[in-house]
């Protein structure tokens, strides 16, 4: 049994509320090993941060978990069962980074399309639009949005989806400090309403503010899993911030 798998199994035993288990996921791009035996658990209602520098494998991992990139090995367990990759969208929704989809469509139409596809009531759509402050740009084309509004639109689409688990890649990218804090409040509000979030974040300060637990990734390997207190204990640095902990473990 490898180290990260053992860590994950121990944590599953500690957390009977495990919503999803990632067990031994591996991925190669030719000779390059993008993910090596990645294992961790996601608990219901938490905000889990996948933390790592650019190129550490966060996006590849999220895509493999969501079934949008074929993994070379490993399993994804949802409440103990192993759904086929094509069925994972029934349980989770993955919001990729840097998308500007359907750029010639109007924002309102894209939002309405998502709501209609999932059969969501108008109140949910209005709530998402209101939470992300999208009302001023509803009659703008997606391609004409600023970077910040583009990110807000993507987040609104994620909020409209009904799946219990949201995977988001760099959700705070493109926002200034004030906007980032606003979006963090939205994310915390989503979690407090019962949804579970897995956020891939490379800004450690942002991650420390918003996440309940962390999976530290570097070079496609898990370097640590737990709450900030767990990680501090693991590194023997009781007063350290996430940055120091991350540097110590990687």
């Amino acid at each position: 049994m490898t180290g990260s798998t053992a860590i994950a199994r121990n944590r599953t035993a500690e957390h009977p509320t495990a919503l999803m288990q990632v067990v031994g996921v591996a991925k190669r791009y030719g000779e390059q090993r993008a993910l090596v035996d990645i294992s961790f658990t996601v608990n219901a209602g938490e905000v889990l941060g996948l933390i790592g520098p650019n190129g550490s494998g966060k996006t590849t991992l999220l895509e493999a978990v969501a079934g949008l990139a074929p993994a070379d090995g490993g399993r994804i367990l949802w409440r103990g069962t192993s759904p086929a990759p094509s069925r994972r969208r029934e349980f989770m929704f993955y919001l990729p980074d840097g998308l500007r989809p359907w750029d010639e469509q109007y924002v309102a139409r894209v939002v309405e399309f998502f709501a209609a596809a999932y059969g969501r009531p108008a109140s949910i759509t209005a709530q998402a639009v209101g939470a992300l402050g999208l009302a001023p740009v509803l009659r703008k084309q997606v391609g004409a949005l600023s970077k910040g509004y583009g990110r807000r639109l993507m987040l609104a689409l994620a909020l409209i989806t009904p799946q219990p688990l949201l995977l988001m890649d760099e959700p705070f990218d493109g926002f200034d400090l004030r906007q980032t804090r606003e979006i963090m409040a939205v994310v915390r509000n989503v979690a407090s309403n019962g949804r579970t979030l897995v956020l891939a974040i490379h800004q450690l300060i942002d991650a420390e503010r918003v996440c309940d637990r962390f999976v530290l990734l570097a070079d496609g390997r898990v370097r640590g899993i737990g709450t900030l207190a767990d990680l501090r204990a693991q590194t023997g640095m009781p007063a350290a911030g996430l940055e120091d902990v991350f540097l110590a473990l990687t």
Partner: protein
Amino acid sequence: MRSPDAVPVRGAPLRPLLAKELREIVSGRALWTMLLILCPLVGYSFWQAVVLYGEASAAARDSPVLASGLSPLDGVLVPTFGALYVAVTLLFPFVAIRSLGREKETGALRLLVQLPYRVPTLIAAKMTAIFGAWLLALVPAASAVVIWAALGGHLHAPETADLLFGHLLYGLLVGAIALFAASISESSATAAIIALAFTIGSWVLDFALAGQPGALDWVARLSLTQTLRTFEQGLFSIGLLLGVVAAIAGFAALSAVWLHPGIPPRTKLLRSCACVAAVAVVFALATRLGSSVDLAEDRRNSFSAADQRALAELRAPLLITVRLAPEDPRYVDLRRNVLAKLERAVPGVVIRLATTGQSVVGSTGEEAYGEIEYSYAGRTDKSRSTSPREILPLLYALAERPVPPPGAGEDYPGYPLVADARPALLWFFAGLPLLIVLGWWWAHRAPALPAQLVKDGGQP
């Protein structure tokens, strides 16, 4: 068992998906550019066809024999729809590629495949949108048909509908190829190159290989343009229909196989092989289906009704051995005037080319070159004629049957018409383009916002 918190993939409403796909196609510039190019193309083709038809009609005004050669299908409809064919071949792939290519380029595909729709449903919706785009592309040619009727031109509904249906099949086939090209390409530009390789490659097959002997002739028949030829002759072939529908379904299925980014390439390859094998089986079945209906008003694909009835009663195998090179014009005549009609009329006809692999130059020196041998029920006769007037009596003699008397009132009268189509140019060069620009504006206008979205969505 389904988890209580699972979002069902089946049963999601199709209407929003279809609306979104149609909006995607009409929001791009490719469709409107194609429509604007189609207007003068179709308009000029129509005007020129009417002028030439009028000149031929003027000469045939006092001659029933000349008049009987004037068919609006050949004279006006096929040339006019030829402009649509050119546009569908060269421009429609760009329109169809847009339905998927842009989503791949912007990453929207990764959102789309997570929505509660199965991949075949997504492809079906895109094909529906492509059909919608083809319907819009049909507007200039359809308006030409209306103008022709308004000018007093004759239209035979079955052959006109057959021609339209042929163009529909061709449009959907080009659309399905373009969709497949988009599904296997990372960029729209690459997809366009692949799609045009199919469509323009068909022209190359037509020009380079048509009439060539043996396997080359078989390869030439894979040309996409062959789809149209039969329909342009007023023939509705069940086998061709089955083959083209199988090709459309096959390319759509391949698009579905290659659409999802989460499927390993090896699995995609295996599924593709299964698709190709299934289509090949349907092709094999289609080539055995010889039944067809002659919808041309002048019955150009059939002998007279009396001959058709008499020939249908020839139950023994009829073996025809042709000593002509396939590219020889006499063989082309024989094929069109006799052999193709015999294949439709006689149940057990077998045609054998005795000069396979030889060219006209290499064969004409042989004494037997040009002979056509007919064998029926142990009797054999030879002829060098390519005319049914000589060949049919020969066949009746071999079968020891009387020559049927010609039926009355079967002769095609022809429909000469001298008309001035110049006012139509105003429609094609000004009226219709203006309508298209208005359509572009209408399709791009900002949507009205639902009241609740404005009321409740205003406050962050």
